[in-house]
């Protein structure tokens, strides 16, 4: 029966990735579209078939690779869909290994989405980190290598916290590894360790600095994948295990505002977008913390919408980087004449993230804010609304204005190179833009996928009040932007973030190794020379004398005898071959004679 057959979509991507390098060149492009499409169709075929699949026995445990339910399906759907869009956008990339890294990375995310226990989760969690770091390294700039190692080290630290948490939990629960609601009512140290592991991947301050560091440095296509998967997989994990964990509400609100503040200061367009991921994921983290059905629906809906509009924004700014080689506002400006389509696509992403009516953010973000107000958490509601003003300020206004309008800071070379990108990149942006508008304009498309159907059916985003509220906030934000535009002029500077501590801390460690530790090492060597080496040499000299005069005296007698025999034998051995043969043959002849006549 077909219903019993369950194929993990991650397996399609993993097998697909390993076959890719062996294909002839003409087959590669169709293949690049077919494999993620198959994974997407595989996910579609699971709709309405909730249950547990792919249970494998390993040592003493039963590992669950395929738990299918409402929460799984909404994330699996959007992630496989984004994999198709991202691969189309990167179709021109001829380096197979970039596609392999991207697909393995998506496979890691899907593995986490479908897993039913912490062991499988951990396995795929690490696959994500180790596959995605190549998307940074493949940029192949000198700094890419350093950024990649920092990314890997930070994620390894997060993975270790997660591992420690799940080992403690395994012990505390008497061998329960199942991945579900963790019991937020009675948190223990294992709960917090697992939460830290998830929060690090969700880029919650103070564990967030890896995100702008890595996403600003990733390859053009790599960043499109990275912005979609790591943080949203972490949001899925939080929604699955930590719904209703109250500490997540203030953390989420801080994140939403933190990203906004740094986005004001940022001069690099992709790093600005990266800070806005932190801001947007803040809404989702707060939604998980609120934990009501409406809030979890909002978290899923916002993750779904976010993957598309943030992917679209990274595709837009990535296109500018791909064509001109520049991503800093202080090197760009006035490009609407050269890249009009990219401008329109990016603007659609900007309007979606800003939650304009008819665009995707409008129907998703408001669910979380409403859920906050509904549980009477007014300060969270107002601060999240304030952050959404900041979102429009940067992503909807600052990014398009300073790249496509504003003062033209382009060098002649940048200006000459600027043009709309190749067809596949435009197609990727076009699909994402279409979906952003579809989600915002036709709410059942997204709402029918949400895990709590009753709560979704009861929520209506298009009320006159909501439209009026949103339009007032956004348009008066725009007024503020144009009045204060001089203050926002790009400054060719970088902003120090909390990665300062480990970047400079790492240098401190090197300094420590070079100076004080080296000094201590020298002291020990000197001390050893006086305390250890000189007595040792004296002792050695004594034993040398003893050896020479005492032992050799005894041995020499023996040696003289040996030397005498040696001298006698030497006379026989003249060193000439014929004599040696002669002696040998003689010996054999004598032996034969003795043997025959004895």
């Amino acid at each position, binding site marked *: 029966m077909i219903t019993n057959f369950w194929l993990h979509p991650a397996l399609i991507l993993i097998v697909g990735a390993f076959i890719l390098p062996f294909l002839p060149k003409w087959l590669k492009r169709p293949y690049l579209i077919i494999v993620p499409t198959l994974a997407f169709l595989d996910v579609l075929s699971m709709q309405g078939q909730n249950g547990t699949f792919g249970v494998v026995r390993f040592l003493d445990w039963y590992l669950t690779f395929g738990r299918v339910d409402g929460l799984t399906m909404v994330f699996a759907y959007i992630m496989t869909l984004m994999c198709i869009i991202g691969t189309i956008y990167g179709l021109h990339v001829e380096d197979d290994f970039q596609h392999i890294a991207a697909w393995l990375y998506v496979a890691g995310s899907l593995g986490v989405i479908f897993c039913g226990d912490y062991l499988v989760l951990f396995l795929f969690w690490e696959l994500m980190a180790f596959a995605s770091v190549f998307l940074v390294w493949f940029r192949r700039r000198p700094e890419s290598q350093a950024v990649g190692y920092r990314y890997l080290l930070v994620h390894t630290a997060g993975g270790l916290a997660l591992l420690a948490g799940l080992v403690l939990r395994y012990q505390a629960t008497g061998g329960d590894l199942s991945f579900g609601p963790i019991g937020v009512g009675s948190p223990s140290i294992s709960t917090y360790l697992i939460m830290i592991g998830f929060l690090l991947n969700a880029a919650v301050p103070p564990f967030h600095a890896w995100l702008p560091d890595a996403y600003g440095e990733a390859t053009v296509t790599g960043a499109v994948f990275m912005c979609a998967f790591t943080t949203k997989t972490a949001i899925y994990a939080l929604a699955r295990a930590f719904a209703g964990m109250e500490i997540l509400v203030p953390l989420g609100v801080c994140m939403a505002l933190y990203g906004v503040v740094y986005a004001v200061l940022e001069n690099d367009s992709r790093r600005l977008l990266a800070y806005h991921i932190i801001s947007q994921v803040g809404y989702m983290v707060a939604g998980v913390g609120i934990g009501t059905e409406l809030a979890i629906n909002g978290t899923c809906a916002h993750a779904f919408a976010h993957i598309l509009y943030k992917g679209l924004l990274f595709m837009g700014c990535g296109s500018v980087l791909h064509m001109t080689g520049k991503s800093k506002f202080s090197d760009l400006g006035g490009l609407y004449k050269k890249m009009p389509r990219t401008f329109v696509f990016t603007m659609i992403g900007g309007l979606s993230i800003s939650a304009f009516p008819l665009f995707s953010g409008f129907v998703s973000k408001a669910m979380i804010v409403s859920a906050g107000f509904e549980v009477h958490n007014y300060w969270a509601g107002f601060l999240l609304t304030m952050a959404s003003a900041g979102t429009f*300020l940067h992503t909807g206004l600052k990014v398009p204005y300073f790249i496509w309008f504003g003062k033209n800071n382009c060098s002649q070379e940048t200006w000459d190179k600027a043009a709309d990108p190749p067809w596949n990149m435009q197609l990727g942006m076009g699909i994402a833009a279409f979906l952003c508008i579809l989600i915002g304009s036709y709410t059942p498309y997204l709402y029918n996928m949400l895990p709590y159907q009753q709560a979704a059916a009861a929520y209506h985003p298009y009320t006159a009040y909501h439209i009026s509220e949103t339009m*007032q*906030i956004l348009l*008066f934000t725009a007024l503020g932007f144009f009045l204060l535009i001089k203050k926002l002029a790009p400054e060719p500077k970088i*902003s120090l973030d909390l990665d300062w501590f480990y970047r400079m801390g790492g240098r401190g460690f090197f300094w420590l190794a070079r100076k004080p530790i080296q000094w201590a090492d020298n002291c020990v060597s000197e001390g050893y020379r006086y305390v250890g080496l000189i007595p040792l040499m004296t002792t050695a000299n004594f034993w040398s004398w003893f050896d020479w005069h005492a032992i050799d005296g005894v041995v020499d007698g023996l040696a003289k005898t040996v030397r005498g025999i040696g001298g006698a034998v030497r006379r026989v051995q003249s060193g000439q071959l014929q004599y040696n043969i002669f002696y040998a043959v003689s010996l054999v002849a004598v032996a034969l004679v003795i043997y025959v006549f004895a």
Partner: protein
Amino acid sequence: MILKLIDFLRDRLSLVIRLSYVGLALLVAWDVLFVSKEHAHTAVEHIPGFWAAFGFVACVVIIIVSKWFGHRGIMTREDYYDN
């Protein structure tokens, strides 16, 4: 087509700006006169034009506070981390 539209608007920039102000005023007028406040979560939202003021103040506060924060030593030269 996109280019023509943008250039058309840019050529009439002062008119566009004036129309935008009219648009803002109409939006607030619509909110005050016609929009039902039954979906409001808190009492302050019943103040006429509350969300317009909120959006404007939020934008100004974000820009000023962030820039103040940035100029306290957070923003630094681009080669700061270079050896």
